[in-house]
């Protein structure tokens, strides 16, 4: 595809690489929203990002930020800053990235799957869900207008092995936070200390409307396991979801509430779709492309 002209999508910060992916002095060609870009790592730790024109030459230079183990850029003028996630600054946490994982679907299918608890008992059997405990209890969703984010709070679900650090089943408490159409995270309380939540993010790089790379930085409270163990657990979970994501039809997200029928457990998905509709984003939306 050619680069999207959708101003809503262009004005978001988008992850496009992970720290450690590119050697000093080297560069890496990739794409955001259909726009080919080149990321060059300077001699130190700095990065330069430029669009690649049809002639293969570097064109317009793009803004760069590095945070949460990722490299971010934007094609437009971001209406919001990168989200603040304080957990990544706490020195005693294990901060892990998992590289990126390719997924053939639209970015919003990824966000919705991440927000969803009802699939735990079917897709994450014996870890995030148990086959005999499938119920999703009522939770609340909020549109936090001051930061323009969607939150789902007071979420609970029974989990046989909620993380690498947990032994045995428990009711896990969650809060979900959608920071942009292309970024989502959760706070998951698994430790005895109710103030210390694991923070797990998904930053999505839409290469095109139906092909994405997903980055999963985490800031975890865990004194026992190595970063590799934690990454392995998270990658295993994500590849269980990936089968679902690549087999949803259509890949683009439909916003018409009669085309895909939700139930109470989908309150967060309903709030997310309403929010996308209100911001009039076109990129990756089924009706906008079909029209």
């Amino acid at each position, binding site marked *: 595809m050619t680069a999207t002209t959708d101003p809503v999508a262009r004005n978001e910060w988008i992850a496009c690489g992970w720290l450690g992916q590119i050697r000093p002095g080297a560069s890496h060609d990739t794409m955001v929203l259909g726009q080919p870009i080149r990321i060059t790592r300077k001699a130190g730790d700095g990065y330069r990002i430029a669009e690649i024109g049809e002639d293969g030459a570097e064109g317009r230079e793009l803004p760069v930020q590095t945070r949460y183990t990722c490299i971010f850029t934007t094609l437009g003028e971001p209406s919001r800053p990168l989200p603040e996630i304080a957990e990544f600054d706490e020195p005693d946490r294990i901060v892990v990235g998992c590289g990126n994982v390719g997924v053939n679907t639209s970015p919003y299918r990824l966000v*919705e799957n991440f927000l*969803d*608890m*009802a*699939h735990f*008992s*079917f*897709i994450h059997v014996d870890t995030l869900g148990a086959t005999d405990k*499938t*119920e*999703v209890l009522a939770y609340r969703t909020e549109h936090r207008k001051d930061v323009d984010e969607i939150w789902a709070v007071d979420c609970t679900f029974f989990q046989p092995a909620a993380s690498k650090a947990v032994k045995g089943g428990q009711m896990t408490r969650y809060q979900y936070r959608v920071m942009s159409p292309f970024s989502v995270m959760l706070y998951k309380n698994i430790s005895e200390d109710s103030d210390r939540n694991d923070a797990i993010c998904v930053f999505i790089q839409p290469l095109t409307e139906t092909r994405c790379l997903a980055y999963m930085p985490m800031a975890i409270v865990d004194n026992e396991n190595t970063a590799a163990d934690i990454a392995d657990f998270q990658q295993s979970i994500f590849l269980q979801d990936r*089968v*679902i994501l690549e*087999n*949803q*039809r*259509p890949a683009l997200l*439909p916003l018409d509430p009669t085309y*895909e*029928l*939700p*139930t*109470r*457990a*989908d309150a967060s*998905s309903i709030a997310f779709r309403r929010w996308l509709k209100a911001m009039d984003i076109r990129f990756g939306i089924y009706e906008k492309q079909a029209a």
Partner: protein
Amino acid sequence: MPPDQWNAVALDSQIRASSSNPVIVNDYAVALWRSASGQVNAWEDRCPHRGMRLSLGFVEGEQLRCIYHGWGYAPDGQCRQIPAHPDLTPPKTICARRHAVERRYGLIWTNLADDPQAALPDLGADEGWVAVRSIFLTGGVQEARKAVAGDLAEWDGTVSDGDVVTLEMPDGTRLAAAFQPVDAGSTGVHFVARGPAATAEGRHGLARQVVQLRNRIENN
């Protein structure tokens, strides 16, 4: 609008009890599933909830369950259970899209039209047809039919060209090739046989000949 047309989509013997299978007809994805008791269903391959392909689902008794959230659908298409809300009776609006399906001549046929009027191809009596095998050829259905009819014409016997291409073999065996238009680049051809060669040994021989037919067509 899908054409009012019956297409063979599988050998009946290869769609097992308690299984859900992916089948593509004219670029349209179908979940072909068989209940534990043996009833065959051809549905749009899309869960009405979040669009998950139902061909990746699993069959429990007489229900097809979506793999994503375990929603259970009865053969009438109605959603009967939503595990996230065990006490909820699913509303009538949650219903899978069903298509006409028939079992005949050892084949499973589906017609995607909203109100099918067309008759199934007539191959005479239904009894005695056995599966030979299915093959998939590169290219569209017209091209594939022509190639198969052309190849069968070189075999001993008499070829009848039609929606289903048949070959009357010298020993009285009747071989039939029914076509599944997958997309512009692929066609399924489902072979069944009736008569003296409809034995295990005969089926091995015919299946090998069909593979040779496929290889000849692909090498042309």
